[in-house]
């Protein structure tokens, strides 16, 4: 089984620890994971903002970078949804505009092989207990694209429930969007912020000190609000929790630079 990690551009630059956690986790489960360095970005920011044409080269790039792997695994429901849902759409639109340029093939070969991390663990590897240890109380926010586009349902929560030492608390209004929405966060900052504050408020009512999610973009937005208001709640990616063991417990990323 040849498995490639699609780390995503956001994780590559801003949350490398999440990428490392995925590698650690998959290797612990006996998966030989590779990182093709020709990968960059799935094109979601461009596509969702209305720049469909600019995403076409990225569809090709993605297909070329991950050619030959049985599975492409990514710790982002949103990026997985982009490949699975929108690559075929981009190909169809190009075809109706009279220029296929191999996009149909690129989409057809990548979409079915691309898996969000929890799907890959539960559906392909068939595990829910990944042998993790995380002695903390956690509440879980299911990001929209994983929840609705991919239909991840209770997979992330089943994985969390199997973590030793972890107490999972239900998040009120869990299925409501956190307000990130890519460029929405800057095009409609007031609504975005209002939504984020409500999400944080709901998380605080659980009493859990940790808000877990499976998409670092959403967590970046939530974390940005938390830090601004010095709220005693931390965001942690699901992969970081699943990678954590007694021997190698999770350590929070360094908070250096001038950002506390």
């Amino acid at each position, binding site marked *: 089984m040849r498995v490639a990690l699609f*780390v995503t551009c956001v994780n590559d630059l801003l949350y490398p620890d999440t990428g490392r956690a995925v590698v650690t986790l998959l290797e612990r489960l006996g998966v030989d994971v590779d990182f093709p360095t020709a990968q960059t970005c799935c094109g979601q920011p461009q596509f969702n903002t209305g720049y469909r044409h600019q995403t076409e080269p990225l569809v090709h790039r993605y297909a070329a970078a991950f050619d030959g792997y049985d599975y492409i695994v990514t710790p982002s429901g949103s990026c997985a949804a982009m490949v699975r849902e929108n690559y075929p759409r981009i190909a169809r639109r190009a075809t109706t505009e009279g220029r296929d340029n191999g996009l149909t093939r690129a989409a057809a070969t990548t979409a079915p092989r691309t898996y969000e991390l929890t799907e890959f663990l539960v559906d392909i590897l068939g595990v829910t207990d990944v042998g993790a240890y995380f002695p903390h109380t956690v509440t879980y926010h299911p990001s929209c694209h994983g929840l609705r586009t991919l239909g991840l349902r209770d997979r992330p929560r089943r994985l969390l429930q199997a973590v030793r030492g972890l107490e999972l608390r239900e998040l009120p209004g869990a299925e409501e969007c956190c307000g990130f929405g890519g460029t929405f966060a800057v095009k409609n900052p007031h609504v975005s912020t209002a939504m984020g504050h409500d999400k944080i408020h709901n998380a605080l009512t659980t009493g859990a000190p940790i808000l877990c999610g499976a998409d670092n973009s959403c967590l970046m937005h939530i974390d940005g*609000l938390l830090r601004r208001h010095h709220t005693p709640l931390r965001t942690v990616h699901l992969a970081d929790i699943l990678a954590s063991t007694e021997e190698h417990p999770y350590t929070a990323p*360094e908070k250096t630079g*001038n950002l506390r």
Partner: protein
Amino acid sequence: MSGTYLGLPAFPQAARLSTRDEQLRANLRHATHTIRAKRATAIAELSDWPELRAAGTAIKDHTLHHLDHYLEQLETAVTAAGGTVHWAIDADDANRIVTDLIHATGETEVVKVKSMATQEIGLNEALAEAGINAYETDLAELIVQLGNDRPSHILVPAIHKNRTEIRDIFHTHMAAWGRPAPDDLTDEPRDLAEAARLHLREKFLRAKVAVSGANFMIAETGTMVVLESEGNGRMCLTLPETLISVVGIEKTIPTWRDLEVFLQTLPRSSTAERMNPYTTTWTGTTHGDGPRTFHLVLLDNGRTDTLADTTGRQTLRCIRCSACLNVCPVYERAGGHAYGSPYPGPIGAILTPQLRGTTTALDASLPYASTLCGACYDVCPVAIDIPEVLVHLRERIAQGGPTTRHGTKATIKPAKGHATERAAMRAAAWTLDHPAAWTATQRLATRTRALHPRRVPGRTASAWTATRDLPTVPARTFRDWWQHREPDPKDSQQ
């Protein structure tokens, strides 16, 4: 659409004000969450909901595909049943037709059944200009009209008002429109409803002309269908001598059989009821019963243009149930007025810019009024992929492209104010297609990370940092870590 909403600010500016209005947010939150939960229960009762949803979608798609055929059939059937059919190309056209029809009766007052189509064309304002008073008879519409306000929800136009605010509106304004509210009016729902009932009864009994819309038009028999909760609509449809109905052409369905599907999905999606309290169907005119004259004004107003767009046309399946509004987190915070159209929420964000075009700043901002969270698509009883259409319209705004306006194919230019974004997207796309350049960009970011401020100048950047901190840029990218790890994975493992 009408000029009523011209000159309103773009969505982000309007939403900025409404997100600060604590009372408004509390009202909206309470109302949408209540109806949202009820709807979920009502849907869960049906074991065949996915099939009903698929059936509704198929019926609408089939009808839209053969709309010319069914509209002709409808016209023939309505005429045979004693009605008269008028075709209105746009809002002005429709307003003129209705005004002329009312003038011909010699009346200067009409009662109205709640109707989205007449709001879309700004009929009340047009009638007022022609010296005709149009009285809204739906309770919530009445509140909005008395308060000199605008509706903010498709189904519950006064959703943004609470009981106390409604009591005050009745107190202050009812007298100017007819029977005044009693002096000791409380804010108990019972008392409020009774005050409205007495006020409206006078209108019903006096009116000679009624104006309505319709939820469905059945092509095979020329039958119009109106669904409502209060019975006020039925009063308007049966008491007056003349009935004028303004109906969007997409409301057509082929047969009575098709109605069965929507009579299940619409009430459950909108009011969370198994069946709605009043379902009125009527066909043309009948001697000695109901209106003696019946006019059907079939409204295009951008609909055939929308139909010409392969991705956008699914918007016309909409049965105006408002389920998408009630689950939308953006609608809940921004409120209906921010959408600057009688169609707010997710459906408004795709319908309005298609009907009106995207030339104003307001219309061009609507497709961006969504996080693409997909909750609207999930609840839509006719499976309109609202996020798909939103992205499609964003493309038209950001990049320009082909469109149909007034039946003519045209290529529109990108909307103003997207030049910087366009350049940035192009640059990003190029960088991301060249991994060496991407790596270099990342290196620069990690090396200069100590210099990154928490708040950044510039409009786009400050839109993030006004309320949120930026993430800390780590010392190494993942790529960097991986490349140094590869020679001997065991060494650098966590």
